[in-house]
C-alpha cells in the first residue's frame, strides 16, 4: 500500500539552501554550497521552467548514479575503505543534478520509474500498476545533513543547527494547523532527549568496545594485521589495558637494561586514527641446509640471542622480534616469510611456539626510506609544518632536529591513559600537540613520526611490545597486553633508529591498572604454558595435543590408582615387565644418543631416530647402529618387552659402541 495521501510534499522555501549551507560549512565546501543553494532556490522566484520528459529524467538519474560510482571508486582507490566518510561528504555533489532537474522541470517531481531500473522497464512496457511522482527535496535535505556529519566542526553548534533544520522541516509537515504550544513542547522534549542521548551513545560505544575487546582478550589472541592498525587515538574514557601475558622472553641469564623492544610490524601511512602499510608484501625466507635456522639478513652478524615464546591463534601469524634481527633458529616453523619492513610471519600450528631470535643492537635492517616515509597526511600538514617552524626544525641538522623533538616531548608532555574531552575527527593530534598535551604511546609515536617528517626526516610507526617485567617464577621476562607499545623509527645517517618519545613513566602507569587477581592469573597462565610446551622436543609429527586438556583425566587416574579400587588384572601385572606401564629409559642407549649428538650433529626435533642414525652412519662411517636401534625399539614398543639375554645384549652393544666413539 503506497497511499498518495501519505506521500511527502516538497520542502518549504530556503530549507534546502539551509541544508546545503550546513553541509558546506561542515565539510569545507562553503563556496560550492552557496552557489548550489542559490541555484536551487532561484525557481522559488523565477517562473521559468523546462519541460523535462521521463526519458530525460532517466538520463539524469543514470548520470547521477554514474557520478556516485565514479566518485566512490576514485575515493576508494585513493583511501581504500577508510574513504567511506569522504564519499559520504561528497554525496550532495553527486545527487545535485537530479534535484536540479526536478526543480527546473515543469512537472516539479520525478517518477519513481526514473529512480528504479526495474520499474523503468515495466513502465516502458506499460505494465506498471503504480508509478507515483516523488519529490526529492526532503530526501536531498537528509543527504545534506548526513554528509554534513562527516565534517569536522564543533559538535555543539552542529547539534543546534541540526535541531533548527529538523524543527523547520517538521513544522512544515505538521498535520494540523493549530496546537502550536503542544507541538513546540513535544519537539523541545525530543531535542532534549536527543542531546542527552549523545552522551549515552558515546558511553555505550565505550562500553561496547570495552566488552568486545574483553571478549577478544578472553577468547582469542591478539592478531596483528600488517596492513592496518586502528589506534585508540580519539577514544574517550580510560584506555583499558589487558594483564594477559602475550609473550615470554628468555634472555638466558642476561639482564635487560631498561626496556627491550620487540617489534611486530611497521606502518607508513596515517589517517584518522588508522596506520596503514600497503607495501607489506611477504617473501619466503630459505632455511639453512640443516633446516634449523632461517637467516633473515645475511652477513649482518647478530650474536645476541633471546628465546621468545609466543602464542599463535592461527596457523600463521606475525611474531614479535627484537629490532636488528638477523636470524631465527630452533623453531618448528614449516616456513617463514619476511617483509621488507621486517615483519616476520611464521607458519605453524596454532598455540604456543618457541623460537630463538639472533639479533644485533648495531643496526635495524629495514628497507631504505620510501616516498611515504616523508609524506604528511593533508589534514595535519599545515599544523605539523607550523610546529616544525616553531621548533625551528627546518634549519637544523637531522641529529639536532631529532634531539629537539625528543626534548620537546620530554619537557612539555605527560603520559595519560584517559581522554575526557571529545573533539572532532581529524583534529585529535592537534588537540594533543597544542592543547592538552597528554596521551598514551600511540599519541606520542604518531605525533613523533609526523613531526619528524615535517622536519624532513623519514620516519615510520612501529608496533610491538616493550619488555621489562621479570618473572621469578618463570625465570624469564614477560610481555603483557598492557606492554603493547608503539614508537617511531627515524632514518638518520643512513640507518634506522628507534625514537621512543613516550615518557618512561608509562610502565608504572600501566601497572597501576593491574588487577588484584593478576598473581593467580599469571600462575594459571604459566601452568597452561608449561603443559602446552613441555613436549615440544618429543613430538615427531609436529602436532602437539593441548595436554592441559588431559590434566583432569590424569588427576582422576592418579586418584583411582591411589584409592586402589580398580587395579589391573593380576595376570597382566604378574607377567608383564614393569616397562610396559611406563617407559623406563635405557641408560646405555641414552648415553649413546647423547654421545652421537655431541660428536656429530644434533637430531632434529621431529626427526625419527632411524633416519637420524642412518645419516650418522653415512656421514661418520659408523656401523652397527641399526641392530642397536632394532633392539631398542623392541624394548620400547614390543608388548612382551625384551628377554633378559636380549636386555643384556642391548646394554653390551651400547657399551661397545660408546667405546668406539670417543
Amino acid at each position: 500500500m503506497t497511499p498518495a495521501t501519505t506521500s511527502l510534499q516538497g520542502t518549504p522555501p530556503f530549507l534546502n539552501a539551509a541544508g546545503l549551507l550546513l553541509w558546506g560549512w561542515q565539510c569545507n565546501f562553503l563556496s560550492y554550497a552557496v552557489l548550489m543553494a542559490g541555484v536551487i532556490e532561484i525557481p522559488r522566484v523565477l517562473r521559468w521552467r523546462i519541460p523535462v520528459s521521463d526519458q530525460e529524467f532517466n538520463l539524469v538519474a543514470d548520470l547521477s548514479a554514474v557520478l556516485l560510482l565514479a566518485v566512490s571508486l576514485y575515493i576508494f582507490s585513493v583511501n581504500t575503505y577508510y574513504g567511506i566518510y569522504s564519499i559520504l561528504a561528497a554525496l550532495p555533489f553527486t545527487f545535485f543534478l537530479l534535484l536540479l532537474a526536478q526543480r527546473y522541470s515543469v512537472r516539479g517531481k520525478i517518477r519513481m520509474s526514473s529512480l528504479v531500473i526495474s520499474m523503468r522497464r515495466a513502465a516502458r512496457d506499460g505494465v506498471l500498476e503504480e508509478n507515483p511522482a516523488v519529490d526529492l527535496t526532503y530526501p536531498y535535505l537528509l543527504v545534506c545533513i548526513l554528509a554534513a556529519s562527516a565534517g569536522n566542526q564543533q559538535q555543539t553548534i552542529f547539534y543546534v543547527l541540526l535541531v533548527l533544520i529538523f524543527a523547520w522541516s517538521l513544522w512544515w509537515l505538521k498535520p494540523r494547523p493549530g496546537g502550536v504550544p503542544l507541538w513546540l513542547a513535544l519537539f523541545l522534549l525530543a531535542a532534549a532527549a536527543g542531546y542527552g542521548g549523545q552522551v549515552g551513545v558515546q558511553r555505550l560505544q565505550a562500553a561496547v568496545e570495552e566488552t568486545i575487546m574483553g571478549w577478544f582478550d578472553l577468547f582469542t589472541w591478539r592478531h596483528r594485521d600488517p596492513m592496518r592498525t586502528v589506534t585508540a587515538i580519539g577514544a574517550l574514557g580510560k584506555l583499558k589495558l589487558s594483564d594477559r601475558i602475550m609473550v615470554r622472553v628468555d634472555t638466558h641469564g642476561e639482564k635487560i637494561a631498561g626496556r627491550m623492544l620487540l617489534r611486530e610490524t611497521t606502518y607508513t601511512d596515517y589517517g584518522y586514527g588508522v596506520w596503514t602499510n600497503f607495501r607489506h608484501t611477504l617473501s619466503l625466507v630459505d632455511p639453512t641446509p640443516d633446516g634449523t635456522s632461517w637467516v633473515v639478513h645475511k652477513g649482518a652478524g647478530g650474536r645476541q640471542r633471546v628465546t621468545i615464546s609466543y602464542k599463535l591463534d592461527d596457523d600463521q601469524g606475525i611474531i614479535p622480534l627484537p629490532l636488528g634481527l638477523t636470524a631465527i633458529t630452533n623453531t618448528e616453523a614449516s616456513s617463514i616469510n619476511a617483509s621488507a619492513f621486517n615483519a616476520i610471519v611464521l607458519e605453524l600450528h596454532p598455540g604456543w611456539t618457541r623460537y630463538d631470535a639472533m639479533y644485533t643492537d648495531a643496526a635495524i635492517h629495514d628497507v631504505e626510506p620510501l616516498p611515504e616515509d616523508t609524506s604528511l597526511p593533508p589534514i595535519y600538514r599545515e599544523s605539523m609544518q607550523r610546529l616544525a617552524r616553531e621548533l625551528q626544525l627546518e634549519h637544523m641538522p637531522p641529529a639536532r632536529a631529532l634531539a629537539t623533538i625528543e626534548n620537546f616531548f620530554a619537557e612539555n608532555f605527560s603520559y595519560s591513559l584517559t581522554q575526557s574531552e571529545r573533539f572532532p575527527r581529524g583534529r585529535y593530534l592537534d588537540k594533543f600537540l597544542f592543547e592538552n598535551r597528554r596521551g598514551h604511546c600511540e599519541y606520542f609515536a604518531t605525533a613523533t613520526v609526523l613531526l619528524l617528517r615535517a622536519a624532513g626526516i623519514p620516519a615510520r610507526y612501529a608496533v610491538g611490545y616493550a619488555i621489562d617485567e621479570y618473572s621469578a617464577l618463570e625465570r624469564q621476562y614477560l610481555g603483557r597486553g598492557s606492554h603493547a607499545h608503539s614508537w617511531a623509527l627515524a632514518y638518520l645517517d643512513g640507518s634506522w633508529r628507534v625514537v621512543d618519545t613516550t615518557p618512561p613513566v608509562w610502565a608504572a602507569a600501566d601497572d597501576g591498572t593491574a588487577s588484584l587477581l593478576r598473581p593467580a592469573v599469571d600462575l594459571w597462565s604459566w601452568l597452561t604454558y608449561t603443559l602446552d610446551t613441555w613436549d615440544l622436543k618429543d613430538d615427531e609429527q609436529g602436532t602437539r595435543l593441548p595436554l592441559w586438556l588431559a590434566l583432569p583425566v590424569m588427576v582422576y587416574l592418579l586418584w583411582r590408582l591411589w584409592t586402589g579400587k580398580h587395579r589391573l588384572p593380576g595376570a597382566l601385572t604378574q607377567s608383564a615387565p614393569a616397562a610396559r606401564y611406563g617407559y623406563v629409559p635405557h641408560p646405555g642407549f641414552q648415553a649413546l644418543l647423547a654421545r652421537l649428538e655431541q660428536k656429530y650433529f644434533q637430531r632434529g626435533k621431529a626427526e625419527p631416530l632411524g633416519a637420524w642414525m642412518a645419516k650418522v652412519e653415512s656421514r661418520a662411517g659408523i656401523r652397527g647402529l641399526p641392530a642397536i636401534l632394532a633392539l631398542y625399539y623392541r624394548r620400547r614398543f614390543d608388548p612382551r618387552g625384551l628377554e633378559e639375554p636380549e636386555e643384556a645384549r642391548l646394554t653390551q652393544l651400547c657399551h661397545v659402541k660408546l667405546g668406539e666413539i670417543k
Partner: protein
Amino acid sequence: MVGKLLYRNFILVHRLSHWLRLRFTAAGALIGYCLIAAAVFGIDTRQTLAYQIFTLCAGLLAVALLALPFLRSRITLQRALPDYATVGQECEYRLTITNPGRTTQRNLLLFDELETVYPRHQDFRRMHDSGDRYRNIVDRIIGYPRLVAAIHKLRGASIQPVAVATLPAAGSLQQTVSLRPLRRGYLYFHHTLVTATEPLGLCRRIARQPLTGALLVLPRRYRLPPLFPPGRRKYQRGGMHLASSVGDSQEFFSLRDYRPGDPLRAIHWRSYARKGEPVVKEYQDEYFSRHGLILDTFLEQRPELLLEEAVSVAASWAAGPRHQDALLDLIFIADRSYHYTGGRGLAGTENLLEILACVQPCASVPFSALTREALRHAATSSALICVLLDWDEPRRDLVRKLRSLQVPVQVIIIAKDRELSRPADDPMRDQPQHFWVLEAGAIQQAIDHLAPRTQ
C-alpha cells in the same frame, strides 16, 4: 529447508513492513530512514557526528510514540459496496463515517483493508510472476518481490486510504473510496483501520474496526466480433426447457399411444380414462441456435496468465451480443465437469460472468474429461467455440472429434506468443479463418488484427 526458512522470513518481513507503513507517516518514515542511515555512519562516534542525527531522530520518534496513547478516535463506519466490479477497471464505493462522540475528530486516515492471504510455501515455489522479467537477477533469485506481488494479487485490489480532515461531534459524512481490482473472484473486506496522527506528525495510532463484506470481481472483457451467423438452428429434443434440463416444451402437438419409456407425467389421464389404454401427450419439437463455449482450464505448468486471458475471452463472448433466441452452453472442468446454459430466459449474462469469475484451474482430472463433456453436448450445438490454452495432441484430438460431428468449430488458442507450431495433421488447417492464436497480454490487439479477416 533453506527455501522454507527464507519464505517464513519473507512473511515476517512483509508483516513488519505493512505494520510500519501503517504506523508511520511519510515524515515519520523519513525520520526512520534518517535514523538508520545515521546509525550506519555514526556507529563510530569518533569518526562522524552522525550519532547526533541518530539521537535526535531517536528522540523525535520516541516522543511521537509516547504521545500516541493520548490520542482517541471513536467513530463508526458503514460500507456500501456495488454489485460487481471488473478486473482492471476502477470501481467506487461509499464509506459512511460517523462520529458518535462529543469532540471533533481531526486528521483521521482510514485504511479499508482487504483480507490478506499468504500463499502456501509449495504454491509460492510454483508461482510465476510476469513482473519477474523486469526485476534484477538478485530479486528474481531471492523471490521476495515475487511474494509481495503474489500477496498483492491474492488480496485482489489496492485501496486508496481516505483522509478525513475534520469530523464534527455527533456528525457523519460520506466518503467515496476507489479501488482497482487486480484479479477476478471475490474480494473479501476484512476490517477498517482508523488512524489518528500525533501532533508531531510522525506516527499514527490505529483503531481496528471489523467491517466485513464481499465484492465479486468479474473477468476482464474484450471487444469481440460476431463469430458465427446466428441463424443455423438445430433440433432440440424436448424443446427449450429440456435444453436447460428442466421441464418439457409447452407447445402441445398431439396425443399418441403410450410407448414403454414414456414418462408418467406425459400421460393424458382423461384420454386414458376414455380409451382404457394409456395415451400420452406429445409436444412440439423446437429448433433454435445453441452455441457451445468450451473453456480449457487445464493450466498444468503453463503461466497463470494464460488461464486468466482464456477466461476473459470466454467472458467477452458470453457477454457479447447474440441473437435473441440463441442459447449459450458454458462447458468447463474444474474439480468436476460444469455445464451452464444461458439465454432465452435461462441464466443471464451476469450469471455466466459470475460463474466465469470463479473458474479455477483444473489439476485433478485429465484433459480427456473435457473432450468427453464437449462431445456429449456437441450434437445439439449449432456451433462450438473452444478457448484453449495450447495446441497439443489432446486438444487437437478434441477439435478433430468435434469436427467429425459436422459441427462448426471456432478455435481460439491463448498462447505466450503468436508463433505456434502446427503439425501436418492439424485439424484446423483447412479453416484458418476459424483458428485464432491470441497472445496473452495483447489479446485486444490480436483480436483487432484478426477480426477484419474473419468478417
